[in-house]
């Protein structure tokens, strides 16, 4: 049940500089827990008490998970998850 997760520059401090890491989980939430076990601190940059952080975009393959099921989005073997911080400001 391996899923590739692409990590943006600003979060590579949690992945020893790796652009992509592998993880496991039946849902996005489980995947983030699994990543946290090897990349401590990463989960808090993606999720807060209300779910996915507003200015972090997470994509399952080609879709924004906000339009799927958010943290409950189901994953399958071979899926690719991409994390990109929003480019935004005032």
């Amino acid at each position, binding site marked *: 049940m391996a899923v590739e997760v692409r990590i*943006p*520059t*600003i979060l590579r401090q949690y992945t020893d500089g790796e652009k992509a890491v592998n993880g496991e989980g039946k849902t996005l939430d489980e995947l983030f827990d699994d990543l946290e076990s090897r990349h401590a601190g990463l989960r808090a940059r993606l999720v807060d008490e209300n779910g996915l952080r507003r*200015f972090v*975009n997470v*994509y399952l393959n*080609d879709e*924004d998970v*906000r339009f799927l099921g958010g943290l409950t989005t189901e994953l399958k073997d071979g899926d690719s998850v*991409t994390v*990109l*911080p*929003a*480019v*935004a*400001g*005032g």
Partner: protein
Amino acid sequence: MLTIDAATREAIIAHARADHPDEACGVVAGPVGSDQPLRLIPMANAARSTTFYEFDSMDLLKLYREMDDRDEVPVIVYHSHTATEAYPSRTDVSYASEPDAHYVLVSTREPDEVEFRSFRIVEGEVTEEPVTVVTSYD
């Protein structure tokens, strides 16, 4: 220091003027490690706002995939302020997520006056840097 060619600088200013009074935004990509802003990619402001900008989430994915395929990085991330100075707002600082990028701010508050400034925004710290305009990079 930001080194930028005159044509790209003009194109950023023109984009900002065209979208006024909404904020305009975009990226200038360049080869990894080059620090050369070569390929201007104007982005739509999904917020369509005079006080906020945000890249559309699907546009953002497409942009980063494309840069990845071409071994590029966002050398410049630019946006405009339409009623205030060309200096990063608190919101800009809180969302800045490209520590290696030059954050370019253009103000369109004065129709006849160009304000074009560049900053580094790293871990909440704003540092202005000089801008050198060249005709070409060689």
